[in-house]
């Protein structure tokens, strides 16, 4: 039987627990189990045509403010042996595609960029309040209701994937369309890529074609010397890409 004394103890505890439940419950599909997934992304340089569909789709899906990018596309031109000084451009992040190149000859290719959802992410490490976090299914997210806007994470990201939202004043980045992938959908960028240059990969799913691809193709991550455990895998990444 619940006495008044017990009730006095239980009520605040229950209120706290309920607040925690409300704050921490992710928006998920009924059957989605976060411990059964480990998300990454495959980006195929050979297939990217620089159309900018992915950037537009991301911008629309996630309400990305003008002039900031959760994903963008870079165009590389490498004339010859000078791998260290490629010509790179990304007008408006490639959101409207690319104008004709002013270069002739050499290597020309597009590189889609996004958050690498690193396993040992420097951004998560430096956040002073833990507002940037790893989900159990391998996605790096920002809790905008908690972020201080100190921008240390933006400084710590080696890939330039983060920005301070101009009106929310909190850090923002690619969420791997977490609201979609936890409902069994793919990301907006992957869904809208006309050539399949971007493919969402579930590294814990043994049936995911990513495993076969990783076994049989040349794959690289960006800036591997920084040992961030990046999970954005690039197929046929040129050595000139930074």
């Amino acid at each position: 039987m619940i006495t008044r004394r017990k009730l006095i103890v239980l009520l605040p505890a229950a209120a706290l627990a309920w607040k925690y439940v409300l704050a921490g419950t992710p928006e998920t599909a009924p059957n989605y189990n976060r411990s059964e997934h480990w998300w990454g992304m495959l980006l195929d340089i050979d297939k990217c045509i620089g159309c900018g569909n992915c950037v537009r789709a991301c911008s629309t899906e996630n309400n990305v403010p003008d002039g900031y990018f959760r994903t963008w596309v870079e165009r590389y031109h490498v004339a010859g042996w000078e791998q260290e000084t490629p010509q790179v451009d990304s007008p408006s992040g490639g959101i409207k595609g690319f104008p004709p190149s002013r270069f002739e000859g050499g290597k020309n290719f597009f590189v889609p960029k996004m958050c690498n959802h690193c396993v040992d992410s420097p951004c998560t490490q430096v956040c002073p309040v833990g507002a940037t976090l790893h989900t159990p299914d391998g996605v790096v997210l920002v809790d905008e209701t908690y972020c201080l806007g100190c921008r240390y994470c933006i400084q710590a990201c080696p890939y330039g994937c983060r920005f301070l939202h101009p009106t929310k004043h909190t850090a923002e980045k690619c969420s791997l369309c977490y609201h979609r992938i936890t409902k069994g959908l793919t990301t907006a960028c992957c869904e809208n890529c006309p050539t399949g240059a971007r493919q969402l990969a579930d590294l814990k799913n043994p049936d995911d074609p990513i495993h076969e691809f990783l076994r049989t193709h040349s794959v690289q991550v960006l800036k591997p010397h920084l040992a961030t455990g990046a999970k954005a895998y690039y197929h046929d990444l040129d050595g000139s890409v930074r």
Partner: protein
Amino acid sequence: MPVDGFMYPNEIELQWSVLIVVYPFVTGLVAGAFILASLERIFHVTAVKPTYRLALLTALSFLLVAPLPLQLHLGRPERSLEMYLTPHTSSAMAMFGFVYLWYLMAVILLEIWLEFRQEIVLLSQSCTGAKRLLYRVLTLGSSNISEGALRVDDKVGWVITLIGIPSAFLLHGYVGFIFGSVKANPWWSSPLMPVVFIFSAMVSGIAVVLLLYMATARMRHQSIDMRCVDTIAQYLLYTFIIDFGLEMLDLIHRIYEADESFRSLDFMMHTKLFFSQVVLQIALGTLVPILTLGAIQMFHVPEKLRKIAYAVCGCLTIIGIFAMRWNVVIGGQLFSKSFLGYTTYKVDLISREGELIAAGLLVLPFMILAVLVKILPPWPKSEAASAD
């Protein structure tokens, strides 16, 4: 915003503004001033005794202002308390609140209170009205100023100073670590960064106390204790040589190693940072003071000229150290992490993170010091007696 070459699209806007330049500059002055104070207390350098109390009050004045630039810089300043309530243990920045509070509460405030306790008690008895109430509050209910009690104060003060020295190193070394541990940024990422920050802090702190001592003596129409300023200048020179040596070691290491970031950093040194780094920081802010102070050590220089030289060197040192902070904080954001392009920092005059606010934050500690000096006069007792 003018961009040369290619930058990742999100990099074009600089994230850390002039306020984040002010923050390590102010913190450095705190640590440096405290370490100068400890020279007399721990290392028995009696010549600098006239500056002991002034150095403590200077450290407190700057320490009170230190968190303001950070607070003003936050995108969501109303959430800053979360850093204390739910700190993320793997974050160097999360430790700021604790290091700061430790230094403020356990070191500076306690040491100042113990140092001034006798005067506070005497003033609480001799003053009237609001002043009496203020001093009575400041006694914290402890009005025992017997010889035995003062001896205990002295011993406890000594212990606190002893703890304070590594704490000062921790306070500013930690600020250096904030930058030095960012592996994404080769301009910052260096294990030498905390050490360079500590020594540059000592240099700036010693210089500011030297200037303040000379200025306040002049304002009070008191003669400057030349033995004191000569000794301070000597310590300024020694610390400066170590600081400059460390900075040059870092620079030479970068040039010799010439890793993938070298081309970018070299370009910046020759263009965007040429004035602030080569002219202001290295030439005017370091070499001129070192050579001048060195010359004073080697040759006989008349007292009047020495005073002028110390004042000029002090000012140049402060400018040089501010330039150093600028070059670290702003310089580290002017180049792309792709090493293929550069951006420009244009500071507004009037905005939340603009020049006016930054200037205000640099002036504010001196205003606080003026008030503190009125409440707790740091001048030597003999001088106070002669003034009466």
